[in-house]
């Protein structure tokens, strides 16, 4: 199969994340395994600075974010050439606890080929270089969540 035929789907969206639809978008007749990561809004956080969250307000530098999602997909394929389909979606706007906010999915022929590592890499990388920010609103007011990654030249 030519790499150019392999499905890559990436999007910043204000709509619900539809896992069934996204899985179908990256399923080929050659793919037997999908590793999918989703992040959801927590209403209660106990690790570190324990707190409650009423909602998160996400924003993005959309055209750059979509370009960086494409880059993450390219990096995944370079590191795991067995990966066939890649889907990366970030939902933005006001999102309440238990709502899926982000999805990374990778498909491959078989599950023992690195497809789990590829999805793990994808979400880690998204949180480093894709320009999306979230403000947390809770009982004690609102606060921007601070990232800590400084991109290097070429990223």
């Amino acid at each position, binding site marked *: 199969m030519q790499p150019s035929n392999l499905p890559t789907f990436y999007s910043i969206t204000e709509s619900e994340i539809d896992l069934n639809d996204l899985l179908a978008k990256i399923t080929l007749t050659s793919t037997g395994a999908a590793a999918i990561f989703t992040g959801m809004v927590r209403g209660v956080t106990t690790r570190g600075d324990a707190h409650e969250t009423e909602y998160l307000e996400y924003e993005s530098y959309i055209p*750059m974010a979509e370009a960086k999602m494409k880059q993450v997909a390219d990096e995944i394929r370079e590191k795991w050439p067995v990966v066939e389909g890649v889907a990366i979606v970030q939902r933005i706007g006001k999102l309440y606890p238990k709502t899926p906010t982000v999805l990374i999915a990778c498909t491959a022929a078989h599950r023992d080929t690195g497809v789990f590592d590829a999805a793990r890499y994808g979400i880690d990388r998204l949180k480093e270089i894709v320009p999306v920010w979230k403000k947390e609103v809770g009982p004690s007011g609102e606060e921007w969540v601070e990232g800590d990654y400084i991109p290097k030249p070429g990223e």
Partner: protein
Amino acid sequence: MNHIKLLFFATIRDRAGVKSLEMDIPTDLTIQGLKDKLSADYPNLKQSMQSVLITINREYAFDEAVVPPNAEIGMFPPVSGG
């Protein structure tokens, strides 16, 4: 002079009070020079300029880069999506 557009996001936008700015800057101004200029012209942004991430035309850029004509410059804190 070069015409450029600045886009502010998250904490930087809150401090700037606007989402975007258009301005003319000297040819050959670097990112460092742009940050110095914004720190001088917009005191609210002075503190932010020390840790801000900068993009030129949607790619991460660094202090020594020269701002090209008609650049779209993004300014924002480290990302926190997911």
